[in-house]
């Protein structure tokens, strides 16, 4: 006789009067397949925890973002923000769709070259570019976005004896009505610093002022902030033309569109409250088209969107290790992935689904990672069905920043697999090994194990 499915016995006190008026369901649905591949099979083959990236989802995201802008504006170019996810396979998907590379360090710059991106399609941002980095970027005719006066002076000095002027933009920071204003990067618009820098670039006679850049923040929930940014960059560009007699070829509005994750403390899920890429595109393109550029002189519009294009293409699979009751009677579930590989759990309430069928009862619980540290909290509160040790979980929308900001701490970082459009599975980063971690360590002779 086949046995009945078992579920941990569980009772929940009924508290009248606190029903959620929005009637949203508990959210827990078994999530057994990613792009048609069984979650359990992936864990069997590649271990747990495991990051999974969907190529189809990346391409869908890219194409709909590109469409949102290109149907509203004549000249649009995306540049993939490497820091968001610089696994080479991921970068190559964006490049194959037509994305340039947007990098913020010499390390990322060399990664982009390694991925075959031609120099003049690499945008070099960031406050820390060494002399060697700058010389490499100049040689490759890359677009250098100047962050500060020291960098500007260094560039002028490096260009002293060059025949071709390096192509540069300045990064502009500004008040767009949102808090915090990222005024630590680039030159300020309101206090005239940006204008002074532009004047200095042009009057040096050594650099070719090609563009203007801003990146006003990340996970920005207001379209109007982008409208203000577009208006201010357009104003600077028009002044460059009339006062400095310098045509600005492109305006780079940076990244910052939100992904559909839910911010911690938000009352409603992100999917219900956030503007779509189309809303942002509408605002930005309207402002540019209605500014004083002659219709045939509209600058190229560059976007460096990161999280909005990759977050929902990434999943983290994991396994339940243990259950416990906390001192106050609340349930806690311990899982095999910690905040060291799921950095974004510090600011998102990530959606988590069981990967197998379950019976209908749910319980409010905390989800803790395996790092013997009090801060290792994946979710403080989540309603999930009763989970048993060995059950698998799927964390959604983890594609942005986790696979670059992950930390190696007391365990090894897991593998990453890509599911391609034909549903083939590719190991795009193998799990770390102890040997790999210790490869560059050295124990002095007198301390070696005897």
């Amino acid at each position, binding site marked *: 006789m086949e*046995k*009945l*499915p*078992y*579920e*941990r*016995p*569980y*009772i*929940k*006190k*009924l508290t009248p009067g606190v029903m959620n008026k929005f009637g949203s369901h508990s959210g827990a649905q078994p999530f057994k397949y990613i792009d048609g591949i069984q979650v359990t099979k992936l864990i069997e083959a590649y271990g747990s925890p495991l990051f999974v990236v969907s190529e189809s989802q990346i391409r869908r995201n890219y194409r709909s973002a590109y469409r949102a802008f290109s149907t509203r504006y004549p000249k649009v170019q995306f540049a993939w923000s490497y820091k968001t996810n610089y696994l080479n396979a991921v970068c190559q998907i964006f490049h194959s769709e037509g994305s340039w590379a947007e990098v913020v360090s010499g390390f990322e710059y060399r990664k982009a070259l390694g991925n075959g991106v031609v120099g003049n399609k690499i945008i070099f941002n960031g406050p820390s570019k060494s002399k060697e980095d700058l010389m490499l970027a100049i040689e490759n005719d890359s677009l250098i976005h100047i962050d500060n006066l020291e960098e500007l002076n260094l560039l002028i000095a490096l260009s002293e004896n060059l025949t071709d002027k390096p192509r540069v933009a300045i990064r502009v920071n500004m008040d767009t009505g949102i808090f915090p204003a990222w005024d630590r990067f680039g030159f300020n618009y309101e206090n005239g610093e940006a204008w002074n820098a532009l004047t200095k670039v042009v009057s040096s006679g050594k650099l070719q002022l090609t563009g203007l850049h801003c990146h006003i923040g990340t996970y920005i929930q207001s379209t109007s902030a982008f409208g203000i940014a577009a208006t201010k960059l357009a104003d600077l560009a028009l002044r460059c033309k009339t006062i400095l007699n310098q045509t600005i070829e492109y305006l780079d509005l940076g990244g910052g569109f939100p992904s559909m994750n839910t911010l911690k403390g938000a009352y409603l899920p992100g999917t219900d409250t956030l503007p779509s890429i189309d809303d942002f595109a509408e605002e930005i393109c309207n402002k540019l088209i209605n500014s004083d550029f002659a219709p045939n002189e509209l600058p190229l519009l560059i976007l460096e969107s990161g999280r909005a294009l990759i977050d929902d293409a990434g999943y983290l699979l994991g396994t339940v290790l243990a*259950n416990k*009751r906390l001192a106050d*009677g609340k349930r806690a579930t311990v899982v095999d992935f910690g905040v060291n590989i799921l950095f974004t759990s510090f600011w998102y309430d990530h959606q988590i689904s069981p990967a197998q069928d379950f*019976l*209908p*009862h749910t319980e409010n619980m905390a989800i803790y990672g395996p790092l013997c540290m009090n801060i290792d909290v994946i979710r403080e509160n989540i309603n999930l069905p*009763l989970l*048993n*040790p060995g059950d698998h979980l799927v964390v959604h929308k983890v594609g942005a920043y986790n696979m670059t900001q992950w930390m190696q701490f007391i365990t090894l970082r897991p593998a990453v697999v890509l599911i391609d459009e034909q549903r083939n599975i590719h190991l795009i980063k193998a799990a770390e090994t102890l040997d790999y971690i210790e490869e560059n360590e050295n124990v002095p002779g007198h301390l070696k194990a005897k």
Partner: protein
Amino acid sequence: MKIKKNIATSENGFVFNPATGDSFSGNAMASVILLAMKNGVNTTEIKADILKKYDVSVAQLDRDWEDWVIQLKEANLLELELNHGN
């Protein structure tokens, strides 16, 4: 270990404690166990019956049983037993 006598349970997992006015909803497993407990079946027998009918290991059931007892205590549904005899 006994459930308080005056506790009302229903087959679909609804539990009512008339002494406190608290009500609880339980899952299917909880209703099975509560019903057996109300009928005076002892722990050993209840566990044996579950192991026979349900897809669960002894270790897992023992583990969950401890948690179950904590839940019952917290919900104030257990008869106080002063003489454990151990």
